[in-house]
Structures are given as C-alpha cells and as structure tokens.
C-alpha cells in the first residue's frame, strides 16, 4: 500500500511554476529516490510534502489521509520527517539540544534511546555534544541535520541531499545507515545529486526534469537506462 501518494501536484513561487503536475507513490518499506538536475524541483517537492510550501493544485496523501495544505507541525506529528537542504540547524543551540528538538514529538526516554543510535552513527557528534551548532563545520552540520531527522523515528524519512559536504568515508556510512533504518521499517525518500549512488541505494527511482516526472522505474532499470547514463552518469564511465 502506498504510504505517500502525490496526485497531480502543482507548485509555484508567485508566477514561477516549479513543479508542474507530478504523480508519485511510495510504498511502505521502500527506499525511493528522486533525481534530476539543478532546478528540476526536487527540493520544492520535498518541502511541499512536509507542508513548508502549499501546492496550488493537486493532492498529497499520507497513509491514506489527505494532508494537502496541512501545517508542517501536524504533518510531522503524523510521522514524516525531513533533513532539509542547507541543513537548517539551530545555530545557537548545542548539538544535543538540536537533537533533542528532533525528538520534539516524542517522550524523554524514547529520545534518550534514539540519541545513542545517532551518536553511534556519527561519533563526531558525540564528541561535540555541547558545541553550538552554528560553529560546527559544514559536514558536521550535515551529520547533525540527518541525525536530527532520525530522532523523530518517522515512518517516512525525507532526505534532501544528505551526502552534500560529507567526506567520502562518511557518505558510505550514511548510505549504510539509510539501508539499516529502512530495514527496521522506515520508508525513505531520497534526493541525491549523485545519481549513481542514489540508484544503487534505492529500490525505485523517479527522474524529475523541469518540474515534470519524465521517468519512473525500478532503480536498476534506471541505472542502466541510456537517457540517465547520458544525462546524469555519463562522463564518469572513464574512471
């Protein structure tokens, strides 16, 4: 059953139409990736799912419930969590306070439990527990943003370019973690610039181009599609 379903969703910024009628479905337990070049509308779509933006047309359903136009806080309480583009940490709060806020909708003991898991995944964050988030390095902030989204233990986790700014060794770690939490029952929607990596992690993928979905298929099919190879993977074959 589809846990998330977007039907003919249109999103615009004033008169700039960023997303022009997309249909998208994610089934429970899947990892789905959304790929596309700069400005295709990936972030716009993610922000709309979490209610930060309101679509001017179309319908968004989560677990069969219509959540179109609902407030972000309500949507989050229903079980969707986003690690946003550009990290958006709380700059003058410590690392641990940031993480605790990630679990705002949960109880204290639940928070403490998940906190341990996040720290195990990113030992650097444990080291910097009491550092103000605004003074963390770029990559450290990215770890914090991912960790904070995990703190909510959402049913659907949205990750907008989680690998951005992370060292290769950490990227590997994050991908592993994504697979792991997915196994534990979290559905994941992943936006990635690194299409190869995303498709290797995901079960299914959508290709977004200038606000429209142009391809939707299983990940390995996309990975071998000529169009994708040429436009997104091309070039790098040599190494």
């Amino acid at each position, binding site marked *: 059953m589809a846990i998330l379903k977007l039907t003919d969703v249109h999103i615009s910024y004033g008169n700039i139409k960023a997303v022009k009628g997309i249909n998208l479905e994610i089934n429970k337990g899947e990892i789905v990736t959304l790929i596309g070049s700069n400005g295709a509308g990936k972030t716009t779509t993610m922000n709309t799912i979490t209610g930060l933006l309101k679509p001017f047309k179309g319908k968004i359903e989560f677990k069969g419930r219509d959540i179109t136009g609902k407030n972000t806080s309500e949507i989050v309480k229903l079980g969707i969590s986003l690690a946003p583009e550009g990290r958006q940490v709380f700059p003058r709060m410590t690392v641990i306070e940031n993480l605790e806020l990630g679990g705002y909708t949960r109880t204290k003991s639940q928070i403490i439990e998940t906190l341990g898991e996040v720290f195990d995944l990113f030992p*650097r964050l444990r080291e910097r527990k009491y550092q103000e988030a605004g003074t963390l*390095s*770029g990559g450290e902030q990215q770890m914090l943003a991912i960790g904070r989204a995990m703190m909510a233990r959402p049913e659907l986790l949205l990750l907008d370019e989680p690998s951005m700014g992370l060292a*290769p060794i950490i990227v590997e770690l994050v991908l592993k973690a994504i697979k792991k939490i997915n196994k534990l029952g979290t559905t994941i929607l992943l936006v990635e*610039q690194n299409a190869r990596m995303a498709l290797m992690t995901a079960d299914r993928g959508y290709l977004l181009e200038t606000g429209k979905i142009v391809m939707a298929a299983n990940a390995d099919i996309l990975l071998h599609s000529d169009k994708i190879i040429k*436009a997104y993977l*091309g070039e*790098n074959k040599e190494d």
Partner: protein
Amino acid sequence: MHKLQIQGLTKRFGGLTAVNNIDLHMDDNEIIGLIGPNGAGKTTLFNMITGMYIPTSGKLFYQGQDITGIKPYKITDIGIARTFQNIRLFLMMTVLENVLIGLHTRTNTNLFDAITKNKRYRNEEKTSHKRAIEILEMVGLKERKDEYSKNLSYGEQRKLEIARAMASNPGILLLDEPAAGMNDNETAELTRFIKTLKNFGLTVLLIEHDMRLVMNICERIYVFDHGSKIAEGSPKEIQKNQQVIEAYLGKGA
C-alpha cells in the same frame, strides 16, 4: 618566492585546535586540492587566509608580502577571492548585480564621479557591465542575469558564487566545495571550467569532497585531519596513502 606561503598556521577555538601548525605553499598557476574529513579544519584555513579569522599563531605570505591579520576587504583587494561553503549570495540582488559587486575592487570611480555621472563614470559603467556579462556567460548563467539570486536553485547559486568571486580577477581563487549540490554531469562541467581557469592563468585552492573532481584537476593535494596536515602529494600518491584511505577516502574509493 611562492605565490602563497603559509607557515606554522594555528587556530584555536577555546580548547579546540581547529588548525594545527600548518605549512603550505602554492605557486603561480597551480591548482591545489585540500581534502580531509569533516571538521578537519579546511574551511578554517580559508577563513584565515581571507582575514575572516585571526590566526592564533603562524604567518601568511602572499607574493612575499606578510598578510597575516589583514582585514578581509583588503585581502580581496590584494588579490585573493573566495567562495563560501554555506552559500552567501546577496539574495535580494539580481544575478548580474551580484557579479557587479564582485567587480567592486576592480573599479575606482569616486563619489564625485557618481553624483555628477561624468564621462569617467559612464565609461566604467559600460566596461563593468560588459565584463560581468562575460563572466556570467562563462558559468552559463547569462540567461538568468535579471533573476533575483535567491530564486536560483542550489546548484545555480553555487555557480553564481564562483562567478562573483572570479569577477575580482583574483591572483588566487579559493573554492570551498564548489561541486556540492551538483550532479555528476554538472561536476564534470565544473571540472572543465576550472581547467579553463588554469588556462586563464589563475591559481586555485580547492576544498572538495568529490574525489573525481579533485583527482582530475589537482596537481598537488594536501590532506588535513584533526587540524593537522597528514599527507601531501600528487593525486596518485594520495589515493594510495594508507593513512588517507583510513581517515578519509574509505574503501569505496
């Protein structure tokens, strides 16, 4: 005499040593890579070079001139330009205006010229405008020149930042993760672009986590970990360096 020379540079934040006794140098027309795990101190080094942080100890020389502790705006004037890891565009200004600001240090009409709009002023206006358009063309943003920069997508904003930094016609260009937020194709395009910069005679210091980009274009690479330099050498050497693999590259690379 090196174009840029760094001697024993250190930066502490309270008890944390973010950059620890670093020596580093760059020569004319080199493209140098700077890599290392998250929080290794790479951005902090940039901040010291550009005068945004005052080093705890150590010295910086640009073309033999001591530039330690000089104000950021003077550093730019001297010839070092940068981009930011967290994009910092002038969001409420158009793409073109952003680049015009980049030209600030390379223009010199004074208030009197501006108020009277004299010939000198009008000539300079024309040349700056032309130059700005040229630069935008190079990064492929010419079509969007009148768009507010906040309306660009993440990737486009990155390109604009590079364009803006290039506008000051720097002796050294410091790029902090320029490929972050770009897909493989765009990264490839960026790779070509940075290579052309070299042909224009620019010297580039590049922080990047995208190894394909780094290995492709850098002549030499410095590797930091926990604020210290752990390796230095050609891409080939670095890729094989066991310490670097363990701390940074991981087995996937």
